C-alpha cells in the first residue's frame, strides 16, 4: 500500500549518517553498493554498454565532489548521494501500484520489483535523484539500506550493516536508529549539527549529513620587504631586475 504508514510508537528509523568532514570521495561505498546489489538477493543491477564508449548502468549510490567557498582557501566537499528514506516520501505516495512502500517498523523505503510497472513517476517525485530505472528489468531501483544484510541472522552481528558502511575506509558512514536519541548515530547528529539535504522541500529525510568542520587555514600575507621602494639598495635591485628582464 503506498499510503505512508501511520507512526508506530517505539518504531525504529533506520538510516545513515554521513560525515562530510571525513569523506574523501573514494567511491568505495558506491562500488561496494553496486557489488552487493548486483550479486545479492535483490540483484541484478543492470549495466549497459559495459565495454563500449558510453558505459552506463544502475547505481544506488553516487559520489559527487564539489568546491566550496570562494574567498581565500576553498575546500573540496565530497557528497555520497543515495536514498534518504524520507519520512514524507513523495516517491511512495505517487506510486500507482503499491510497489513503492515505506515500512512502518523501521522506516526503510523499498520497491517490490515483482509489482513495479516501471512508470518512472517515483523518480520524478524524488528531489534527490535517488531512484534509477533498470531498462532491462523494466523496474525502478533504489537503495534498500541493505535490508538483506542488516537482518540476515546467518551473518556475524558485526557484519549486519549496509555494504556501503562496511566498505568506507575513513568511517565516514554510520548506520543506526535515528529514532533513538541515545543511539550512536543520533548522538553524532546532535554533537556535530547533522543536517538535512534540501531541508526547505519538506521531505524530512532520515539520513543526515555531518557538515565539514570550519577549517580555516591561515594564509600568511605576501612577503613584502619594509620600505622596499626606498633607498639606494632597492634602486640597485630595480636596475638589476630591469637588466635581467631584458
Amino acid at each position, binding site marked *: *500500500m*503506498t*499510503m505512508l504508514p501511520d507512526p508506530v510508537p517505539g518504531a525504529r528509523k533506520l538510516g545513515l549518517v554521513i560525515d*562530510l568532514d571525513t569523506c574523501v*570521495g573514494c*567511491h568505495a561505498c*558506491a562500488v561496494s553498493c553496486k557489488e552487493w546489489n548486483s550479486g545479492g538477493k535483490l540483484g541484478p543491477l543492470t549495466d549497459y554498454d559495459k565495454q563500449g564508449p558510453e558505459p*552506463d*548502468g*544502475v*547505481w544506488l549510490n*553516487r559520489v*559527487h*565532489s*564539489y*568546491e*566550496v*567557498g*570562494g574567498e581565500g582557501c*576553498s575546500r573540496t*566537499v565530497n*557528497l555520497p*548521494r543515495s536514498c534518504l528514506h524520507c519520512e514524507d516520501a*513523495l516517491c*511512495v*505516495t*505517487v*506510486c*500507482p*501500484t*503499491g*510497489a513503492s512502500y515505506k515500512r512502518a517498523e523501521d522506516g526503510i523505503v523499498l520497491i517490490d520489483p515483482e*509489482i*513495479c*510497472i*516501471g*512508470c*518512472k*513517476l517515483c*523518480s*520524478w*517525485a*524524488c*528531489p*534527490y*535523484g535517488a531512484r*534509477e530505472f*533498470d531498462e532491462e*528489468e*523494466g*523496474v*525502478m531501483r533504489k537503495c534498500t539500506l541493505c535490508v538483506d544484510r542488516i537482518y540476515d541472522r546467518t551473518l556475524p552481528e558485526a557484519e549486519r550493516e549496509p555494504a556501503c558502511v562496511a566498505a568506507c575506509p575513513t568511517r565516514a558512514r554510520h548506520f543506526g536508529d535515528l529514532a533513538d536519541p541515545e543511539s550512536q548515530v543520533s548522538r553524532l547528529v546532535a554533537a556535530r549539527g547533522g*543536517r*538535512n*539535504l*534540501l*531541508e*526547505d*522541500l519538506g521531505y524530512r529525510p532520515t539520513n543526515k*549529513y555531518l557538515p565539514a568542520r570550519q577549517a580555516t587555514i591561515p594564509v600568511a600575507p605576501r612577503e613584502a620587504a619594509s620600505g622596499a621602494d626606498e633607498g639606494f639598495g632597492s634602486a640597485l635591485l630595480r636596475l638589476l631586475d630591469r637588466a635581467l628582464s631584458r
Partner: protein
Amino acid sequence: MRPAASILLLTTLTGFAFGLLAWIGAYATLGLLPAMPLLGVTGVALGLLLASLGLAASMLHLGRMERAWRAFSQWRSSWLSREGVCAILIYPLAILLAVALHVGHGGLAVRLLGAAVVVASLATVLCTAMIYASLKPIRQWHNSHTAPGYLIHAVFSGALLFALLHTVLTGRPGSTDLIAAATAAVALIAKCAYWRHVDAQKPLASLAAAIGLPKDAQVKPLDAPHFTENYVLREMGFAIARRHAGRLRRIALCLAFGLPLGLTLLASLSIAPLAVTAAALACAVIGLLTERWLFFAEATQVAALYYGRRT
C-alpha cells in the same frame, strides 16, 4: 524533463477525447442532443476511440506493460492510479449514454448519464493534471496553473473536435464553432499566464542547500560521479535552449490557439465551414503536441542540481 512521445500522445489524445465526451455529455444534459442522436452516438464512439489510443500509447511508457492492471490499486494516494480508475469508469457511462441517445430515451436518463459523463471526463483530465501538479521537485508543474491549464486545454480541444463533428454530420456550422472559438481564446490567455508565471519563478533550491550547506554558500561542481549520462540526467536533466523555447512557444500559441480561434470564427460565419474547421483541428493537433512537448522540455527537476545543471 524528457518529453517522452508516449506521454505526449497520452495527454494530448485524452485531452481531445475527454473534452469531446464532456461536451457531448453537457449537450445531452441540456437536452440539445436528442434532436441529433447521430452526433451524440458518433461523438461517443470517436471519444472512446481516441481515449483508447491515448491509453494504449501510455502503456508504451511502462517498463512492465503486462502489469499495467496493478495501477488501479492505489487510488487512495496516487493521482496516476486515480486517472486510471476515472478513465475506465468513463467507458460504461459513455456507452450507456450512446445507447440511451440511440434508443431515443430522451429525458431523465439521457440528462443524468450526460451529467455523469461530464463529471467523469473532467475528473479524468483533472487527475492527469494533478499527476504533474503534485510533483514538488518540479516548479514548472507544481503550481496553481497546471490543473486549470489541463482542463482548459481539454475543454478547448474537445470543443474543436465537437465543432468539426457537428459540421460534418449536419453540413452547417452551429453554436459549437462559437464555443470552440471562445474556449480557444480562454486557452490562449491561460497559456500566456502560465508562461509568465514560470518565467518569473525562482529556482526551488540552490546547490548549496542540495548538499546541506547554508543557502548562500558558494559551491560549484568539481567532479561528477560518472563520465557518461545516466538515467537521472537523461530523464531529469533534459534542457532546451531558451532561444528554441521562445520560437516553439510562438509556434504553439499560433497553431494551438490563434489559428483555430480565427478559423472557427470564419466557420461560424458560414465561410467554407467544413474546410476551415478541419484546418483548425489540424493546426490544433500540431500546436497542442508542441505545447505539450514544451510543458515537459521546459520543466526542470531539483535533482539535476547535484550535477550543476540549471533548474
